[in-house]
């Protein structure tokens, strides 16, 4: 049995250049929690795609933006919460597109929902911003 891991808390610049570090951070954290390779790959994909959406759509390329990542787990479930401090988005507008509609772009939300078991979008209360909570069964 793996030793219990404290929650991972990290902040990243909301720029494309941060994505490799975000992926490696999440990969290491998921592996330390005993996730199998497929599970690790799914979690890394979901977090990468979600961060891309924050960079492109929440901050609209504003390089001064920040992404907060919190990763925690129990014996059976891993949870990642991503927060941004961009203007609140209408969460009803966050929808995956139909795969039959072949065009560049628009796959990120689909990949997130396929990779994780549960996703919840919302607006922050207090500081202006948004969050995405994602959960995946592990172990």
């Amino acid at each position, binding site marked *: 049995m793996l030793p219990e891991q404290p929650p991972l808390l990290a902040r990243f610049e909301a720029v494309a250049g941060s994505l490799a570090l975000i992926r490696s951070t999440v990969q290491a954290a998921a592996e330390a929690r005993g996730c199998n390779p497929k599970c690790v790959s799914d979690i890394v994909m979901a977090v990468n795609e979600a961060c891309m959406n924050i960079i492109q759509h929440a901050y609209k390329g504003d390089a001064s933006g920040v992404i907060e990542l919190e990763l925690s787990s129990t014996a059976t479930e891993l949870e990642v919460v991503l927060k941004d401090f961009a203007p609140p988005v209408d969460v009803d507008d966050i929808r995956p597109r139909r795969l039959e509609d072949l065009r560049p772009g628009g796959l990120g939300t689909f*990949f997130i929902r396929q990779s994780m078991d549960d996703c919840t979008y919302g607006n922050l209360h207090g500081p202006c911003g948004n969050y995405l909570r994602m959960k995946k069964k592990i172990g």
Partner: protein
Amino acid sequence: MTYKVTEEHGYAIVHLAGDIDLSCSAEVRRALLERLAAAQSTLVDMSGVSYIDSSGIASLVEAYQTARKKHLEFGLVAVSEPALSVLELARLDKVFPIHASASAVAR
């Protein structure tokens, strides 16, 4: 991400290596569209791709659609396992022509 372009069997072959993500997908897009703008049928060697996200996939889709409009061939060769799993997730493994190698295309 690194890339180089070679020519074999009448095709431009764009060899991609490393992680294809938002930080470099525009460069991939440019490299592919340049070959197509030069009226070259193009193959993408993906044997060295260790990771690809939706922005990288979008570059491939745009190149594929551009090639079709120009009546040029466009396909993927030697797709790595990480890249293939993403293509399968997006059901694009049934859309892109995928080949084991460039020489397999020429036969």
